[in-house]
């Protein structure tokens, strides 16, 4: 069956139970992608988040999926709606690189690290353990989740796709 690529852009959640689908978050820099996959029911989803949490928490932001702390619970809701079972879910995490590094350049925002830390916290508070992750470093990553098999792969610039 030919792959049907479904791009997961910044601030998006994409879920699927179609075996032809491949969910792809291209060029994760400081962003993180969280994936959830139910191998029994072959239902999966991916969140592509930009920031750890919304600065102003008094109102719900227009796009909560842009934020790790709001997006992860929404990802869970979406995969459950599609028929996944919570107890069967495999959770994986990628991204959170420090992109803006250079001698003499001080970037104190550390968004990549904070995205990863927040993902860990949120997933732990929801009772999930992370089966596999590829995070940190200084390189962008493209992350793919193959719905047919639940396989997840990572690619960095100039390198081949490799399993996570």
């Amino acid at each position, binding site marked *: 069956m030919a792959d049907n690529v479904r791009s997961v852009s*910044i601030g998006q959640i994409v879920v699927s139970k179609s075996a032809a689908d491949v969910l792809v978050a291209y060029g994760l820099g400081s962003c993180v992608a969280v994936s959830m996959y139910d191998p029994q029911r072959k239902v999966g989803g991916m969140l592509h988040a930009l920031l750890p949490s919304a600065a102003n928490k008094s109102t719900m932001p227009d796009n909560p999926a842009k934020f790790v702390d709001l997006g992860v619970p929404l990802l869970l809701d979406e995969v459950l709606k599609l028929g996944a079972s919570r107890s069967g879910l495999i959770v994986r995490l990628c991204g959170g690189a420090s992109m803006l590094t250079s001698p003499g350049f001080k970037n104190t925002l550390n968004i990549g690290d904070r995205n990863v830390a927040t993902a860990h916290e949120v997933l732990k508070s929801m009772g999930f353990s992370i089966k596999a992750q590829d995070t940190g470093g200084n390189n962008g990553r493209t992350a793919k989740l193959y719905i047919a098999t639940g396989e997840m792969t990572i690619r960095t610039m100039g390198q081949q796709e490799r399993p996570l």
Partner: protein
Amino acid sequence: MSTQKIDQQAELWLQILTSEKSGELLGAAMKNVADNLSMMTGREITVDPPVLKSIPLSELLEHGAESPEAETVGIYLLIEGDLHGQSLLIFGLTDALYLVDMLMGEEPGTTQEMDDVAQSAMAEIGNISLASFLNVLSDKTGHSIVPSPPAVIIDMAASILAAVAANTMEFAADQLIILDTAFKDAGRVIQTKFWVIPNMETNIIQYFKTK
């Protein structure tokens, strides 16, 4: 940062980007960039008239690159002093290598990879570009506005753009306000985007009339 300080910055950005004199001011600033880059490269560099845009996050990638995984060289600098913002020059990898050859006086095709020397040359391009731009703003407004040291990033387009968006989005809603222009050399061999991105509190964005 105090509310008063933020308002002062927003006022200064508004003055620079949306007042009656903006066209003249930004035109002069971009001309200075083009002149200095021309001197540095020994080529005739032209600059498109800068356009103020309000870009939704969802469209950021298509404004910045042809494809999300395109090998891209980004030169990223912060704008510091009386004004806070970011600046990004975006080159395709092939164009960046060609530019390095021009700077070094080498035959095109000589530089095959962005090694330390090549990255240093790109950093200098970033420095000259933003400093040339900010110097005119400084002179005309009487404020101290300076560039930070540059960061040269060589990676997939999407990851560079997302990193910039993240820094901006800490302040703003789902829009980036971007002053967008492009530099070309006379032979149209090199095309680079030059973005100036004000740091904006969400409630300030509404004051920007954009195309």
